[in-house]
């Protein structure tokens, strides 16, 4: 094992930490230096990510790679165990990638009250938490990283947010913390019931047999609450629109692109493989909530007057598709879910970027006041259109591969699940795609088509800035490339997903 392999994952977490320390040491006045340090840090992290991508053994996606296993907290037998497989890799890279773009975007877009030093430091802390969550193979380690992202996001919303920021940030913090409390309870239950270990691979081997079914159900329930709130699934979603609406642009982007994925990732990494029996019992309800979320999120979108809030609500619908895929417990469904996570990260991230840029230009996000964006800033307008199309699941763009396979897989869920129920879900989800087209195009029509309203008719509106191009072009390109050649993701995830889904076939048959 060469040096890079044994250090790569630790570097993914350490580099941002070091960057943060350096940033903290810099005097407050030297903004340029601060930005450079932050950018360099994220770039180095991303370089590590590329190293991982290039050295990842794609043929052996089933097993953990770049694995490191050191003793950490002996008292509770918790170890510093990190490693990635095909499920974590796309998300890890996504998280690294998005952070770089966010630093670039915020270069001269720092929201009030400015203070780039603190802002960038928070962003690096976020990256530590996000990367860490995707590489952790120990429940306590996972929990630490999982919770680590809360604090910087809380401050980001609470300090740099919009008018109603305090309400939103506290709601976000408390709501997710509530879920985490139940989640840690479940972790403890797993620890005591399945052989005094927090090690995820070991638990996957043991827990299913060691724990009686009714106890499994309860433990799964705790995990469900923790992850479902993070996702967020209907009816635990109400923190999301508030948080998104109030958060600064970059905060919204990171929130949508990566933070929401922590929940769905938790399902695939922890809840399903460790407790497959319970997963089968829970799956119909999860699927039900998912399709309710799809329709409900879409209806919520139709009622919005604020652009950012609309996009936030659309996340509820999109994550519904992801959860529907997971609930089917099949290869297709879980692959689709991972693809959906990445796609949603890119697309909704882009939508928030565009919404942020629109707000910056017009000082409003009210749909009723906007209009004629295509006249005043045609490129920005078409980018919005492109993202809207991607978001509504147009084939050829990334969003499609999260949606359609999820619908497809619902036709034939894993053995032990009711086909009738899931086929109903399938039809409802398909109806959801039409509603998605409805609210997204409606939004596009209101903002981009027509002519500018009187109050902005004479305003000078800048089209896309060069810096924005730098930050957006990679995302736009990826949305397109992934849409045309989905194998880029399916090829990575497929092997690992089979290990997850194989548990279900074994039980059913």
């Amino acid at each position, binding site marked *: 094992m060469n040096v890079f392999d044994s250090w790569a994952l630790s570097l993914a977490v350490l580099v941002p930490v070091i960057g943060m320390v350096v940033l903290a040491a810099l005097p407050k006045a030297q903004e340029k230096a601060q930005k450079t340090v932050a950018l360099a840090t994220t770039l180095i992290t991303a370089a590590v990510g590329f190293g991982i991508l290039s050295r990842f053994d794609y043929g052996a996606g089933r097993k953990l790679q770049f694995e490191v296993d050191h003793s950490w907290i002996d008292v509770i037998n918790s170890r510093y165990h990190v490693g990635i497989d095909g499920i974590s890799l796309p998300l890890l890279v996504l998280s690294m990638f998005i952070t770089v773009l966010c630093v670039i975007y915020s270069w001269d877009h720092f929201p009030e009250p400015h203070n780039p030093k603190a802002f960038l430091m928070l962003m690096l802390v976020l990256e530590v938490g996000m990367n860490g969550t995707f590489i952790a193979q120990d429940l306590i380690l996972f929990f630490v990283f999982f919770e680590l992202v809360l604090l910087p996001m809380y401050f980001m919303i609470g300090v740099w947010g919009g008018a109603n920021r305090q309400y939103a940030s506290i*709601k976000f913090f408390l*709501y997710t913390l509530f879920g985490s409390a139940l989640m840690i309870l479940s972790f403890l239950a797993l620890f005591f019931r399945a052989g005094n270990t927090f090690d995820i691979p070991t638990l996957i081997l043991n827990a299913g047999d060691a724990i009686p079914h009714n106890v499994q159900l309860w433990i799964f329930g705790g995990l469900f609450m923790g992850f479902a709130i993070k996702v967020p699934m209907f*009816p635990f979603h*109400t923190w999301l629109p508030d948080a998104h609406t109030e958060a600064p642009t970059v905060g919204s982007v990171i929130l949508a692109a990566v933070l929401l994925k922590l929940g769905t990732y938790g399902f695939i990494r922890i809840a399903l493989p460790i407790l497959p029996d319970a997963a089968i019992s829970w799956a119909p309800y999860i699927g039900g909530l998912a399709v309710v979320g799809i329709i*409900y999120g*879409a*209806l*919520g*979108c*139709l*009622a*919005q007057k604020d652009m950012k809030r609309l996009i936030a609500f659309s996340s509820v619908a999109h994550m519904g598709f992801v959860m529907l895929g997971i609930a089917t417990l*099949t*290869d*297709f469904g879980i*692959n689709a879910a991972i693809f959906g996570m990445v796609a949603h990260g890119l697309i909704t991230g882009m939508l928030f970027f565009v919404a942020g840029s629109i707000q910056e230009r017009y000082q409003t996000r009210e749909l009723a006041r906007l209009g*004629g964006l*295509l*006249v005043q800033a045609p490129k920005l307008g078409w980018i919005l259109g492109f993202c809207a*199309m991607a978001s509504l699941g*147009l*084939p*050829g763009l990334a969003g499609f591969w999260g949606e*359609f*396979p999820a*619908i*497809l897989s*619902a*036709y*034939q869920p894993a053995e032990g699940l009711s086909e009738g129920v899931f086929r109903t879900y*399938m*039809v409802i989800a*398909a*109806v959801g*795609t*039409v*509603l998605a*087209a*409805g609210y997204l*195009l*409606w939004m596009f*029509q209101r903002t*981009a*088509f*027509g*002519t500018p309203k009187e109050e902005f008719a004479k305003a000078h509106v800048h089209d896309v800035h060069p810096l924005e191009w730098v930050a957006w072009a990679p995302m736009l390109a990826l949305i397109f490339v992934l849409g045309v*050649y*989905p*194998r880029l993701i*399916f*090829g990575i995830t*497929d092997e690992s*997903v*089979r290990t997850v*889904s194989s548990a279900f076939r074994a039980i059913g048959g």
Partner: protein
Amino acid sequence: MLAYAWVIPAVMVLSFALILFFGKRLPRKGHEIGLAAIAIAFVLSSICAVEWVGRPADLTVEPAAAAGHGEPQGSGEEHHEPEEEAGHGAEESGQGEAAEHDATPAASAAEEEGGGHGGEEGGHEAEPIRKPVVREGTWFENGPVRINAGIHMDGLAVVMLFVVTLISLAVHVFSTSYMHDDRRYTHFFAALSLFTAGMLIMVTAGNTLQLLFGWEMMGLCSFMLIGHWWEEKNNSDAALKAFFTTRTGDIGLLVGISILFFAAGTTFDIATTNRAALAGDISHTVLLAAAAALFCAVIGKSAQFPLHTWLPDAMAGPTPVSALIHAATMVVAGVYLVARMYGVFWSAFDIGGGGINPIALIGGITVIIAALLAFVQSDIKKVLAYSTVSQLGYMVMALGVGAWTAGIFHLFTHAFFKGLLFLGAGSVSHAVHSFDMKKDMGGMRKAMPTTYKTFMVGTLALAGIFPLAGFWSKDEILLGAGENGYELFLVVGLVGAFMTAAYMTRCVYLTFFGEYRGHGHPHESPPAITVPLIVLAVLSAVAGLLNAPGIELFSEWTENEAVLLAGVAHHEFSISTAVMGMAFGLAGITASYLYYWRNLGPHRLTERNGAALAGYRLLENKYYLDRLYTDGIVGSIKGPIARGAYIVNQRVIDAVVNAAGIGARKAGNFTYDVLDQKGVDGLVNGVGLTAEEGGSVLRVLQTGRVQQYAAFLFGAVALLGGALVLFT
């Protein structure tokens, strides 16, 4: 070339990208790229067509009834795989013809079987067909399932390639002049390229997933092009309406594809699906559900009753786009889907059984109601739009009554004359800057002789007059309906033929005859506009001969495995049906002609001819119908029916669509305001509020006085002490 047909859509996609990124900087604003690309695509398609025609017919397929093909499929497929890989590799390394391989799995299986039982089945009169050319590579894998992408070239695909590229070429040339000073000239050509690419991807697709790609790409492009002048709200509304309506149908497509994916054994492959459906490997319930779902998509995309309302609104787009949408792309996609997945529809709806079935019924209803509506339009494009809806109804009906070749053939011929008519209408409107026949046209035949002549050819072809294209294809549909036990639809077809002829005559009269009612001085359009008209006019005149009795090349070329497996019947040309169809068409023209002639000429003429005409009453109905355009007589049946239908169309069906939208919005508002903000969120806030309220109650107790605290302390101790004494 057949094996490299994937190049054709690729050229158009490339053209889209090039125009998008570099078009604005080019001297001709990007149309040179679009024109070059579509010209290349057309040439390549023509080469494909020639190769296909020259391909030996060496694949024998017996109808499913004769041999059960179910079992050998699995082995056939596995056996097929390494070959496929080899083909793909060779494709990349660019080795020529050697890499070409063909044969679908079951076809080869059938061959093997045929070889094995040669002695027994030698007597079968199975007609050999050309093997489809299949080239596929792995797109992606998911669990044990491998999804391929590639091309599946058979007669149907080749015909469609040819038609689509030809019409698109004509539209491109036409647009260079028609759209000359447009606000977004470059953007228009980029979208046109992508639109064509979408259709080409769809027709070359060998699996449903890829078909869905092309299908939705067209949805996107129609959205962009119908809303081309998006500054006006009407246009963007129309664009949204088109997208939503078709997307509503697409629920069915998503569901149908999903069902068939599993029903056919986790594959998207269309040929396999068709075979499985025809061999009875799929339970009838599942098949019925899948077919019904897919048919929803067809209703949406091909503007069939009751989802046809978007198509007339789509006239908000530029005229060349209308020509492209109506003639060769987008709306015929639905018809193509039915034709492509014919095995599924055939088995599910028992098309071979005769009587009545949903496809034929929907098609038949559409033929009539759309034709009725065409009578009351004053916008020339709307007449043509309703005419398209009606003709699409014919095609769907043809497929529904088991006349597969006829349906496709009508699609083929219709593309030429409808493209011609739309471009002709565009040419006229280019001259008078309006689409209103009543207000701004009339007498154009003098000012625009070329446009007039070509438009006349198109009209006659559409009306089904011998020997123009429409006559042959319409005749085949009528024949199929009559011979396959669908007599009701034979009647519908005849009535439709009559109405088609009549409303087109009216349209021609209003546009080209009478006095010029507009302002300004219209003159003939430039060559970029007239040349495509002439080319299309020639094709509209002769294309029908391809399948004329004695020639019948078209049916031979398009002969397709699924259709043969299903055992779709071919019928001999029948003079009586042809004469009947023709008579109805002529009757329509005559009726219309007399009516307008009478209005212009001496008063008595109608009375004289009216008695002579067999369809006197029908004429009278028409008489009343046109009261919208003349200050004449009221009280016919058609007028109110047509207007009633139009009102139903606008107020009921459209209202349902709108109401669904408003309802969804209201429901959204309700969910958001009441359920979400007050209910779900209220619960969350309620928890916080309870804590707060509880705090404010307790707050009263905290007076800050030490002695009061002490009093509580002692009181509590006393209580607890008392409790201790009492309860222990």
